[in-house]
């Protein structure tokens, strides 16, 4: 029995993989489902060290906000709806003319043009020439 307890204690200590927010150099440094997030350097490339964090979500995964979704994806609850939706799924960014509520919903060469007093608009090419007022909604990324 004592031996079993010692083994259990060793197993507990062995869980020394980096946890959320711990410093890392690569994904394998991080425990569980975490990955190593490293900042992009101004001179190009990635910083040698980063922190362990949750990965960005892939297409089709359940999300609460667009900031959880990977590149060229957004959370579908950003799209027009009658009632605020707590969750959506990560979906591909929208082409020109498709509905949106913020720039992140649109393909990289498009922006979201939202009429004044409205919450949603559509993805368009060039914001400067539009009569509509563009509302750029912030992203923390």
């Amino acid at each position: 029995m004592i031996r079993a307890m010692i083994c259990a204690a060793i197993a507990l200590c062995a869980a020394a993989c980096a946890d959320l927010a711990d410093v890392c150099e690569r994904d394998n440094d991080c425990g569980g489902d975490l990955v190593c997030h490293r900042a992009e350097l101004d001179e190009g490339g990635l910083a040698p060290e980063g922190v362990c964090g949750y990965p960005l979500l892939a297409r089709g995964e359940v999300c609460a906000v667009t900031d959880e979704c990977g590149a060229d994806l957004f959370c579908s609850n950003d799209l027009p709806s009658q009632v605020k939706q707590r969750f959506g799924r990560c979906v591909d960014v929208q082409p020109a003319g498709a509905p949106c509520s913020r720039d992140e919903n649109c393909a990289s060469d498009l922006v979201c043009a939202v009429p004044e007093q409205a919450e949603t608009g559509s993805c368009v090419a060039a914001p400067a020439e539009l009569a509509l007022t563009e509302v750029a909604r912030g992203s923390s990324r």
Partner: protein
Amino acid sequence: MLSSHECPGRRATPGDGSTQLVAPVLVALILALGLAKGAYAQVPADPDAADAAPPASAAPTPPAEGERDTTLEGTPELRGNEIVIISAAQRDEPVFQSPRAVSIVDRVDLQERASRTTPEALLDEVGVFVQRTNHGGGSPIIRGQFGNRILLLVDGIRLNNSSFRQGTNQYLNTIDPLAVDRLEVVRGPGSALYGSDAIGGLINVLTERPRTAGEGVYGSARVVGASMDRSAQLGTRLGWAGDGVGVLASASYRHFGDLRGGDGYDQPFTGYEQWSASGSGTIEVKPGQQLAISVQADAQHGVPRSDRSFPLDFRVFSVQERQLGYARYSVARLGPFRRAAATVSYGRQHERQTRYRVTRDAREEDDLAVATFGVQLGGELDVAGPLVTGAELYVDQFVMDAASGPLSGALTADPTAIRYPEGVGHLTTAVFAHHELALAPRWKLLSELRLGAIRIRLPTDDRLVQQFPDEDLPVLPAVTDVVPVYAASVYARWEVTPWAAVSAGAMLGFRAPNIDDYARSGAEGPGYQIPSRSLDPERALSGELGVKLAPRGADISATYAYTTIVDAIARRVTSLGDITTIDGLRVLQSGNTDSARYHSVELAAMAPVWQRFSAFGTFSWTRGAQRTSDPVAMTTTTEPTSKTPPPFGTIGVRWNAQATRWFGEGLLRYALDQERLSELDRGDPRICPEVPGACRGTPGWAVLVVRAGARISSRLRVTLAVENLTDASYRSHASGIQGAGRGVSGVVEGTL
């Protein structure tokens, strides 16, 4: 520093293999120890009856014959009208005889509810709604009040300090549930006995005291596990009881994985770790004189702020620590005093919140440590009835730090970002009295009074000037303010029959402006708070009407309360020159701009229905409206109060076997829709997601819980629970996380 090894492949399904291994091993150990002691045998109730009369706010006396024995070794037997509460009047008082709206969660409840945290233990209590911004939090809301309008006490000593913010908070979860002997809840203002913050009510957490009746060595081990967050808790306590002297030590470790919500939604940024340890000693110095000493420590690490965390921008309470040490000397007789006690305490709370912004290669830290020195004197005389009187002093000292830097690497101090300016100080002192007068054989009149003062020291504050040099902002002057405070209560109780009583009361409570109201600068709750000056205490006047019925085997209570708060301190949207938002958050400032009124109804009932089956249920309802004055726009608006819970409660059926050796219960925990929202609620992503559409508030929900447990032997008790049987996807109002999905939790506790 990086570990030198490479982590072997990431988990296919999240879960900490280490704790998954440890828990079964210890469960097996406890089972072996417990079963080895033989079959179930009735053990006499805790014989620790030789202690001196407990001081005000000390642990309750052991149960007398016939009462519900809440020790693991005893035989619980529910006699609802004999359970004693001490927090309502700072003296022992059967719940039935208290005119206050009170409830108790004892050790048996904690075991049978398979509670994994202290806030969770309150989930089924009438009138207590538990809001959770994150999995590591848990903030009680009573009669629509929360945060620093609810007073938390540990062994009668204030857990609230002057840094407690207006929003919901996480501090109740810094108390180890394994060390808790019982939780006492008093609903409605309790300022007359306990001072500032007790507007909505108070929760007194009483930890276990050492035995002193010569039993020798005793102890227990407890394992708690749950599948919905892959959590495991290991706790032990070990004590020694000599003749008039005893010591007790306990330690526990808790690991919480990420919480799975209903419908299989795995919630990132919810797992965390927690350690707790405590030691206490009691010695009978002379006959009738007792010295009790207690030291408690609790540390949480890596508690994510779930509602404001995303993969590339997340916030973590990297440190959340609480320490408390106190010494209490109590005497059974002292001159005219029937009993008296003096307590000296030192508490410390330390929290560090860190924000990681990957794309900006930035890390920001906000660090705050608050040390509280306290002295309490109290005693009970007999002056035409019991007269409890006392005096207290609390002094808060602060150490703040703020720093920023790259994601990984050294940080640089950032004095403009510290939460409070260097040199803030807070002192509170008061005297109070509680008197009970028997007007007639069945009539009782209770009256309470408190007089005191609070001194607040605020230094010159130029943080905003430094932070926004382009704006024409003033430097806030140094201020030392002494604020007189007072509170009072009067209650009448009429015992219509030996099993029915009616009571009515009026209470004047208060919350004095604290350091957080005055001096906070930084992101907080739904906005970015900036400092204030010239705040007054907010005052609550509450009227209450209650009925308690305890006919044979049943326990029924009904309470209606009306509360009005004047000069309410609230955060209002403001601007800093032309700046209306900072870092995407609205600029907010505290002021005595609001008034609010609340109606509350609380119903609780438990009654035998057939053979060994009983039915129980609770219903709680609060409706609040607040008036907000804008001194600049000269306007007044009326709107629903913020974060007010919807109607909520439980309904269930319980089965108890002979001598309560076995029990089983099924209950439905529910909350209705909450569509009544304040302006702040509508801007709070915990309530209204920041996406298109109309905000309809929080949808109603109901979850089914099934629990069963057994005292397998005199030394072993096991409880199993299936939570959220239908795997409903739901969110408690104003919470930052979804409620737990379907899962199994269990508690195994064995004693030496």
